[in-house]
């Protein structure tokens, strides 16, 4: 185990602890999913050679690259989805503000 792996593992442990302490209790499923996800990433930090073997089998050079590609794709997708949700919310707010303005018009 390298010092880098130790740092990654400690950082992930800190994130998991933070989520369990500070996220609202109603988000327990999200918290569980993030714990599992970060846990898996933490495990790969301890066994990088194993991850590289898996990556090689699908044509990617290094295990770290496999993690990076997957994470990047999910991140970009999530950004687009967040933007779409924001647009929907903006439209709803606009319609609400407009309806109130018309209802309360002054003469």
């Amino acid at each position, binding site marked *: 185990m390298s010092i880098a792996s130790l740092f990654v593992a400690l950082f992930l442990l800190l994130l998991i602890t933070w989520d369990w302490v500070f996220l609202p209790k109603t988000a327990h499923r999200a918290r569980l999913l993030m714990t599992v996800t970060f846990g898996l990433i933490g495990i790969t930090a301890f066994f990088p050679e194993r991850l590289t073997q898996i990556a090689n089998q699908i044509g990617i050079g290094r295990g770290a690259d496999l993690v990076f590609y997957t994470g990047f794709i999910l991140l970009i997708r999530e950004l687009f989805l967040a*933007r779409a949700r924001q*647009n929907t919310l*903006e439209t709803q707010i*606009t319609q609400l*503000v*407009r309806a109130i303005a*018309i209802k*309360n018009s*002054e*003469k």
Partner: protein
Amino acid sequence: MAELKPHLAIIIPFFNETSLMAAHLNRLQQFLKDQAWAQNLQVSIVLVDDGSKAPFQTPLESNTHLLRHLINLGQGAALQTGIEFAVKKLKSDFFVTMDADGQHRCEDLQPLLAPVLNGQVDIVFGNRFAEYPSHAPALRKLILKGGILFERVITRLDLSDSHNGYRAFNRKAAEIMNIQLNRMAHATEIKQIVARNHLSYTEVAVQILYTDETLKKGQRNLGAFIILKDLFSAYLFKKTN
């Protein structure tokens, strides 16, 4: 039985420019009283306060309506609010949109309206480059010219002034109008609506009065890039008319 006069709604959105708005409103009211052509119409002025910090406290005449957005949404949103109010509540037949800062001259109102009142076209766009020498700053002119070229490519409309808020249109156009871009990209969106719905259109020369005050309050030159960003975002995510 007295014949009902056609109803004209003059829609003026404003944001944090209550003193300019009050002065412009006063000028407009006085102007309309002196115009013979305006006596053949029932005219209402629809002010849309787009979430100004200070409330508009000028007393309203009987033909003036004030609508307030609880939060600032943008000029596009304010225009659509005014249009919807005029269509649904006032049952207006004709519509004019103008800016609140006094850049648009009252004297250009009748020439702007004439093609719509006569039934020649559905919508008229004001064109600051047509007859009057434009006193816009050089950089503003360059950006506006770039905007014109861009809009000609995406809308295929033959128009010469990309972002002029002085417009006149009939009820057919107003009912189709569904501005979804809240901020400054709405000016391009309106042209897209005209193009997609095959509305007839023309341009009329109008003079824009630039002063230090109006330039300070007007769009920043960098706004052109924000408009491009909003248009691209709308292309990717929003519905179109």
